[in-house]
């Protein structure tokens, strides 16, 4: 039996399960907030074209609008200035094989409970590797914080001095890129960087280093608690937008049942 036939059998028997890591696109889902004089990320919006009525008697459909970076979304290297001159740096140019690959999940739930501004360090990653083995090259690395279980004002956690949410340190990201050769980095928060990352050096280090190295980002993920630390396969294929810097997408993971 071929691998794919085996996989199809496993999917139908349930021994391989598909986990949805995506938030519903909802007009009220938070987006990143920048100082108001900057351009802003558009919220998801949906307008009826017709609903089995005088505008179209037998069909219902909507026009939708949003940013490339609204909801659960994918960041391409061209999203950041550090990746702007790379080849194949936009969503339409990335080779499709990059959209499917192994995924490891770093559990930072406890650390985040203790510190909303928790910063994932190189040491944390090395500690994780002691338990789960070295992160395989070309893996997606997802930072699990259970942040996706927050809603409303708790999600952005915006205060007078800006948002407060966990993210990786510059050192941790560089380690993952330079020494582990990861494919990309994903979070449950609104960005791959922590809420206070504007004050880091460089600002927004995850964005800066990931995209500068031609790697990808995933944000606003959900259901990371349903994934094993290792062994799952992630499907994350953005829309094929010409010169697109990112895209909302459906992120799925295949997990073998215990």
């Amino acid at each position, binding site marked *: 039996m071929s691998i794919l036939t085996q996989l199809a059998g496993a999917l139908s028997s349930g021994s391989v399960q598909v986990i949805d890591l995506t938030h519903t696109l909802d*007009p*009220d889902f*938070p987006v990143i*907030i920048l100082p*108001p*004089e900057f*351009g*802003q990320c558009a*919220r998801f*919006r*949906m*307008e*009826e074209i017709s609903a089995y009525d005088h505008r179209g008697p037998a069909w219902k459909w909507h026009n939708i609008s949003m940013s490339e970076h609204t909801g659960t979304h994918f960041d391409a290297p061209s999203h950041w200035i550090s990746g702007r001159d790379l080849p194949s740096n936009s969503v339409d140019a990335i080779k499709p094989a990059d959209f499917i690959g192994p995924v490891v999940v770093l559990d930072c739930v406890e650390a985040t409970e203790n510190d909303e501004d928790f910063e994932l360090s190189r040491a944390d990653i090395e500690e994780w590797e002691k338990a789960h083995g070295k992160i395989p090259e070309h893996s997606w690395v997802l930072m699990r914080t259970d942040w996706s279980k927050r*809603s*409303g*004002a*708790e*999600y*952005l956690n*915006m*205060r007078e001095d800006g948002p407060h949410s966990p993210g990786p340190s510059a050192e941790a990201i560089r380690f993952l890129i330079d020494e582990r050769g990861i494919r990309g980095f994903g979070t449950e928060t609104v960005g791959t960087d922590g809420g206070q990352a504007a004050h880091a050096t460089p600002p927004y280090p995850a964005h800066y280093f990931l995209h500068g190295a031609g790697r990808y980002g995933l944000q606003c993920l959900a259901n990371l608690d349903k994934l094993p630390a290792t062994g799952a396969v992630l499907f994350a294929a953005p829309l094929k937008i010409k010169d697109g810097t990112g895209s909302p997408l459906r992120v799925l993971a295949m997990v073998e049942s215990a």
Partner: protein
Amino acid sequence: MTEALFPPPKKNPQKRSIKPTRPPEVRSRASLGLTAAAAEGRFALQQCTHCSAWQYPPRDACVNCLSTDLEWNEIAAEGTLIAETTVQTSPRLYYRERMPWRMGTVQLDAGPVILAHLHEDVAEKSRVRMIARLDRAGQGVLVAMPVEDTPLMEDASLMRELTADPKHRRILITDARASNAPAIAKSLFDAGAATVFAGEAEAWRPYPARSELENLGVDIMPLDVTDTLSVQTLAGEIGGKTDILVNNAQFVRPGGAMSRNDTGFARDEIEVNYLGMMRLAQAFGPAMNSRTSDGINSAAAWVNILYVGALANTAGFGAFAASQAAAYSLSQCLRAEFRDSGLRVMNLFTGPTEDDWFQLLPPPKVLPQAIARELVKGLQAGLEDVWCGDIAKDVRERFRRDPKVLERELTFGSEGP
């Protein structure tokens, strides 16, 4: 003397809501000058530019010298009630439903004889003071009032027909986040509003005025005027008890067409300022339209807060002004669509407001308290156009004088070498 109006009892759910009817709307073109003055609460009559004779009813030629140059001027409002009647029967449904109706003949000290509505506190054959108001057909009418204000005169059923007084009404302010929201809510409560709702977009984003609104007793409800579903959802919830809608949602950024690199802010301006009004109208309009004869807390008015650049573009805020022109035009469309029910559309025009976006403009700037005060006064007088602050009044005067000259005044270039 007028008896106090009390909050209405809860509505009998078995009773059909009264369908709106209207007084006659048809008028001569000349007569619309009265409506134009009443829309701003001004009592004006035609005067001959040649012989200065006052005219009433409105004419196309001077009754004294046949000059056709007549202009609308404010005139001394005092007069004497020389005859009166209480109409007990009328073939017109609107009046039939509101019988008895008091009206009378007033001779103005300045000469003209006016048939007018009579306030109930006017004594027989007494001295009166005339005011102009818009009736439920949206046309200017003249009302004889007591010379001295009487207590509770605004509670008279006649005045409830001719105004959109917030007293005992339930009012939705569409943007709780706007810096003017607390001041508007406070003024409305001070004017006797029964309930003030405030629409809050993006509850996941904190803002300082929220606690202020809560302390005032405002009911904060989710509402994002850029999100159709959100607007529909709130309308489903409170559309049937929104008596006055104050649309204070406004997106403003500096810049014109070329001084911006993209259409991003322009889209936001159109989404909030123009399409937002349209979404609100589509969701709240039908219920408000059907409730304009619904007793003491009937639906009464729709208020837009507009930037005076709607009349002529102000280059520094050129793209924003364009969105305001669109909103202004849409407000006129709403007036037409609300005409049949008698729901009023009041536009409150301001100059630059005292906030972050107009920081670099010199004073005078309009404070939230001024907006709130003028808004309530406008509703109490049933106005259609309120000019709030010196700049708005100035632009209005220039616009009336010559719109082209105003355009040129507002679009000066730099002097160059």
